[in-house]
């Protein structure tokens, strides 16, 4: 993985010192809260319902064991002993004191981490496929592109006061595990007919109150022009993005209002003027960065481990976990292992300091020291030998981290909701817990198969409800929590926005409604169909009929 050199260290250290000074000026009253807000936001510090919340960047979701241990240390020392992994592959601490934040940032800098641009109207922490460098279907490791963008976007002098926040995601494979179509810019690494690797660039996707699927602005961008093209898009957005209404300020609105053709024309015109100028990455720099993402020293192994196959036969519980948790690895004899942070009845994405330490230890022993954070709020060990899976599973199970529910109905994304967030209209976590408990029977969950439920406690859609197979949106109706249900959303390469089923349900009716939708699917499904496939075949009506028949 990427390692800081003296320059990266200098920039992060200077940013910490700058922020310490800013906090000092705020605490002394020299700066007003209004002046301080954008500065603290650019460093990931929010003022929430009960306390400050610090969002720490995990660039493209990659962590070493040492970094994980430091995250655990911070949870113990400055928080209440846990952290919360987010849908943007970051980690949030919900209870730090303002005066401690500079020290937390110093602790992070010690392990080459920071909280730069995890909030505010700037280019946010860049996300990527959590299986980067491991997935069998990968064209190129997306972290190389993502690290180039991380550096370029950090403290960018021109683009730090954009009309609104700006999110970039990168996927290195045809299968999209980074939800690139619902980002301000989505980058897909592609191979041209002549074999050259480059980028397909999408623009104008997003969720929030006006969800939109991103549109392809350029089908093939040669790699050397990555930064000039990014600058061109950002400059057009900075100049022409709406600043009169915060709810219309995202790039998706600009792209929608002027149309993708006109937007592309403006970007290409700007690009023409700056392409090949010193704004580009100097020669050799991308190769330097790529060097850090070279594969670890894999052992030569047969494609299939006989030991692993035998263990699955012998132990059905292990086989069930393996079915839920593993993903094909490009290296023969290895597997990608997902660790569910969704225990039955738990808080999606929460992890205790002990769990974070334990995963750090497992990564060191089983996965070349690497951990990934997924945008679905789970953790991944990217490089595990198949013949070590059984031993790993036993350890995970002992730790309570062996829930075999990845991609099932209980693998729910949920935003913090009304329990923490001062924007929320309704609770999300307790709804997730209710659904999780209703489908606690793991056999039943596996019978239902792949089903992505995503819950947001307000229209800002941090819980990605627009792209949930079942999406749940909390709304406020005269002071009471109500929930709208949508069907058919999809965050992958076949991206789609969910459709509203009908009138909202009260808090107490949501779990029953979800179960009703699942039952309808089970009645209607044909051989091999996932929930989403059945929905796409039959449409909204059959689900709607069943759902509202009793009402």
């Amino acid at each position, binding site marked *: 993985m990427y390692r800081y050199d003296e320059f990266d260290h200098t920039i992060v250290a200077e940013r910490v010192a700058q922020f310490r000074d800013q906090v000092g000026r705020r605490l002394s009253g020299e700066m007003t809260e209004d002046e301080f807000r954008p500065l603290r936001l650019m460093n990931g510090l929010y003022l929430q319902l009960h306390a400050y919340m610090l969002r720490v960047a995990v660039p493209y979701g990659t962590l070493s064991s040492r970094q994980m241990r430091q995250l655990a240390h911070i949870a113990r020392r400055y928080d209440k002993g846990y952290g919360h992994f987010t849908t943007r592959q970051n980690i949030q601490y919900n209870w730090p004191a303002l005066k401690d934040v500079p020290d937390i940032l110093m602790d992070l800098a010690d392990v080459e981490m920071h909280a730069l641009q995890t909030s505010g109207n700037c280019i946010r922490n860049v996300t990527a496929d959590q299986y980067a460098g491991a997935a069998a279907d990968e064209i190129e490791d997306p972290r190389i592109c993502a690290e180039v963008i991380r550096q370029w976007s950090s403290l960018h*002098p021109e683009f730090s006061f954009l009309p609104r926040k700006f999110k970039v995601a990168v996927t290195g494979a045809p299968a999209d595990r980074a939800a690139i179509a619902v980002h301000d810019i989505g980058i897909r690494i592609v191979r041209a007919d002549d074999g050259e690797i480059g980028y397909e660039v999408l623009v104008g996707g997003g969720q929030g109150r006006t969800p939109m699927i991103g549109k392809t602005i350029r089908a093939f961008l040669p790699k050397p022009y990555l930064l000039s093209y990014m600058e061109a898009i950002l400059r057009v957005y*900075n100049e022409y993005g709406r600043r009169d209404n915060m709810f219309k300020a995202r790039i998706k609105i600009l792209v929608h209002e002027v149309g993708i053709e006109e937007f592309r024309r403006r970007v290409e015109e700007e690009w023409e003027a700056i392409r090949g100028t010193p704004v580009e990455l*100097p020669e050799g720099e991308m190769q330097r960065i790529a060097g850090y993402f070279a594969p670890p020293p894999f052992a030569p192994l047969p494609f299939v481990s006989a030991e692993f196959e035998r263990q699955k036969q012998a132990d059905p519980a292990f086989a069930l976990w393996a079915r839920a948790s593993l993903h094909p690895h490009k290296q023969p004899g290895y597997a990608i292992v997902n660790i569910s942070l969704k225990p039955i009845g738990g808080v999606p994405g929460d992890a205790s300091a002990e769990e974070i330490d334990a995963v750090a230890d497992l990564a060191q022993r089983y996965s070349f020291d690497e951990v990934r954070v997924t945008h679905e709020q789970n953790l991944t060990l990217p490089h595990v030998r198949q013949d070590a899976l059984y031993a790993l599973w036993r350890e995970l199970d002992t730790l309570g981290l062996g829930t075999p529910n990845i991609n099932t109905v209980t693998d729910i994304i949920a935003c913090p909701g009304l329990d923490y967030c001062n924007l929320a209209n309704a609770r999300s976590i307790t709804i997730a817990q209710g659904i999780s408990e209703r489908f606690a029977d793991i056999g039943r969950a596996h019978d239902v198969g792949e089903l992505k439920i995503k819950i947001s406690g307000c229209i800002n859609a941090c819980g990605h409800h627009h792209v949930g197979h079942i999406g749940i949106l909390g709304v406020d109706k005269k002071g009471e929590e109500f929930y709208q249900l949508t069907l058919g959303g999809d965050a992958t390469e076949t991206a789609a926005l969910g459709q509203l089923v009908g009138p909202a349900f009260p808090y107490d009716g949501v779990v029953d409604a979800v179960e009703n939708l699942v039952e309808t699917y089970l009645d209607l499904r044909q051989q091999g169909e996932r929930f989403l496939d059945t929905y796409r075949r039959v449409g909204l009506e059959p689900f709607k009929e069943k759902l509202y028949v009793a009402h």
Partner: protein
Amino acid sequence: MSLIKNGRVVDDPWIALDDEAPLPATGPVIVSLTRLRAQRDALVSRRAPLGVRLKSSELAVEVGADAAALELIAIEFPTFRDGRGYSTARLLRERWGFAGELRAVGNVLRDQLLFMHRCGFDAFEMADQNASETWRKAMGEFTAFYQDATDDRVPVTRLRHRRRAAE
């Protein structure tokens, strides 16, 4: 209000002219873009330094080639959150070849000074008692930079390879 130019507090020799105010016979004046367009010939033939003050919504392309006739361009930041002026500044310098004084006016705060300087501003109007000290501190907060911008600070992406070539 203090004016910092090239790192020093200086007196402001420029007269900011309202659109209705009569044009003085002599002395450097700053006018709005509207007035520049309406009275371009009269303003240019005055043979005194001419400046224009841009609202944040008035983008570089609206000045365009006229930049060559100007000795000062002031760019307004109605609030520090409005970041259009950064692009305006870079484009005036890099695309339209403006070499005169580029002045940041309005809600100009310490924590934006370095970004502004990197985008080509060389003068800053600030409501700060210790503007000179503030400016010095702001310029010293960072010594390494990831991006190529309008200033002459060399980004680390290039320094890395220079160093490697020298080894």
